[in-house]
């Protein structure tokens, strides 16, 4: 078994890993654009591609875990908005319904007196609870999660509307916590500028801290997925629930946890989003759920469960981002930036055909 040639072993790795196909596709497309697209080969483009996926990338992690277990969550955008309002208001003590209500409950926050710890706790805690509610409705009613979250999506949007007082929240202060979650990543930017492109170049590199969080979370959840029994059970439930239960897997519990993780990550994305733009609106990130599903699918996850990876999902969202930058810079007459979704559509279908072909090779 250990005497196999390198070629056969790498071929097997390629077949057995859901990330291999999407990764190769992304590298090929990136190189293609490097060659044919003017202005593509800049640090500005590269950092732009990476920065563009920070928020969608973080929620795609949770969506991927859910999809592997055979579930969907269409209620992420209101969770992001909820997190943005809570985190934004409480971090600086904005004069808002949230701050005033929490203060009247005796919590340590007041107008003009922000509380960063409380802001972070609420920002990830409330969406985690919203995920818990999704999970509980699912296991108690047995209504498909697509429908459950289609419903809670509207309910949660209504909750956000109430909590927000139907207003846009915008803050002017810049507490250090915003820098931590999504400031400029100047350590890397300065390094690139000094050593790779030169101080006097016109190329502007702009990596942000959100990318560090994104890669960290991807690594963490990928490990959770493949190295723990929880991850093992998610695959089993999505692959063949009857078999999983027959082997004693507690499928309802694992599902509820997955929905809580998805909510937690949406909350995290809300914090990152607010840290960058210092504003949030009720309809924040509407439609991000489908972007996340697209990323997961392009990255090799199966729509009906049992297969996929967090690495792959990251590659999936990055691949779409590479395409976006490339197509925009190519400046095609019929595909300006506004018409980019058409390209995403083609990508999704093409990727799924390719990924299916790869997966069938590994299982039959």
């Amino acid at each position, binding site marked *: 078994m250990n005497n196999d040639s390198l070629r056969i072993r790498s071929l097997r790795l390629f077949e057995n890993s859901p990330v291999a196909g999407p990764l190769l596709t992304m590298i090929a497309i990136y190189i293609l654009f490097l060659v044919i697209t003017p202005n593509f080969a800049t640090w500005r483009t590269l950092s732009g591609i990476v920065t563009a996926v920070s928020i969608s990338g973080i929620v795609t992690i949770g969506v991927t875990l859910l999809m592997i277990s055979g579930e969907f969550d269409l209620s992420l955008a209101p969770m992001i908005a909820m997190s943005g309002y809570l985190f934004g208001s409480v971090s600086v003590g904005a004069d808002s319904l949230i701050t005033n209500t929490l203060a009247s409950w005796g919590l340590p926050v007041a107008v003009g007196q922000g509380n960063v710890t409380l802001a972070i706790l609420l920002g990830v805690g409330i969406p985690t609870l919203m995920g818990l509610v999704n999970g509980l409705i699912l296991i108690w009613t047995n209504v498909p999660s697509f429908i459950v979250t289609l419903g809670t999506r509207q309910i949660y949007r209504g909750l956000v509307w109430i909590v927000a007082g139907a207003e846009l929240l915008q803050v002017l202060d810049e507490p250090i916590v915003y820098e931590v979650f999504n400031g400029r990543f100047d350590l890397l930017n300065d390094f690139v500028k000094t050593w790779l492109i030169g101080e006097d170049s016109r190329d502007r590199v702009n990596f942000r801290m959100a990318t560090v969080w994104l890669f960290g979370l991807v690594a963490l959840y990928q490990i959770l997925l493949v190295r723990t029994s929880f991850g093992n059970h998610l695959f089993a439930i999505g692959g*063949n629930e*009857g078999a999983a*239960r027959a*082997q*004693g897997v507690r499928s309802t519990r694992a599902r509820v946890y997955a929905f809580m993780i998805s909510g937690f990550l949406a909350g995290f994305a809300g914090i990152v989003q607010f840290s960058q733009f210092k504003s949030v609106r009720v309809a924040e990130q509407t439609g991000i759920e489908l972007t996340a599903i697209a990323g997961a699918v392009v990255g090799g996850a199966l729509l009906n469960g049992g297969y996929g990876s967090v690495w792959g999902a990251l590659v999936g969202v990055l691949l779409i981002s590479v395409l976006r930058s490339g197509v925009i810079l190519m400046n095609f007459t019929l595909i300006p930036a506004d018409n980019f979704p058409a390209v995403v559509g083609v990508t999704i279908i093409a990727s799924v055909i390719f990924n299916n072909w790869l997966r069938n090779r590994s299982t*039959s």
Partner: protein
Amino acid sequence: MEQVAEKIGNDLFKDEQVIVDMQNVTKRFGTVEALRGVDFQVRKGEVRALMGDNGAGKSTLIKVLTGVHTPTSGKIIFDGEEVQINAPADARALGIETCYQDLALIPLMSIWRNFFLGRELVTNIGPIKWLQRQEMAKQCQESLLDIGIHIRSAEEKVGKMSGGERQSIAIGRAIHFGAKLLILDEPTSALSVKETNKVLDYIRAAKERGLPVIFITHNVNHIYQVSDSYTIIRQGQSVGTYMKGELTQQDIADLITGAREK
């Protein structure tokens, strides 16, 4: 008095050689009587074929034994103790391993992940259950080799294996985890002749290790070579249990269809 008598009766008939003894088991679904007082006894170390036509009640009987259905009346004695089996988990805790046709394995997962599913070897790090991946892959490969199945790598996906090899994982799993009784539901129904022979070999291997096997089928040819005895079920009742050699294949076929009474 009655209770005492029953207890003495139990002790008298307590047979060290019997692994499972189902007594006068009935099962009603609404007005349908799926089982009408079946007695079914399997001895340690034997391979028992449970035969009957579609709808005869053999699946219902097995589902009562594995906790999928609870019996309407009747008694189950397992390994000398009277037991209540209310859920599949109860059956499993007793050491009854079942391999259903389509509920056995997860094709998109690797062999070792299937082998240890629900019983993973883990290191607890706080609330995190960290999988001992190499150890599981190694034990899985060794266990399968032990019953004569050579796999290239435990990392291969189950979906890549043939139907017979898939059955082997379920059988290997039962032996590895020290099951006291293995139930195979139609293990050969969708297999080629060659694959069927392999599965029959695995069943022999299980028997050699002292693991009793109940083998459900309606195919006379497949089981004739490997079973020690046959129980035939027809219309929710046991037609009878016969030792190997007592019946010809034609007799069995006639008893299954009711072309001949006992």
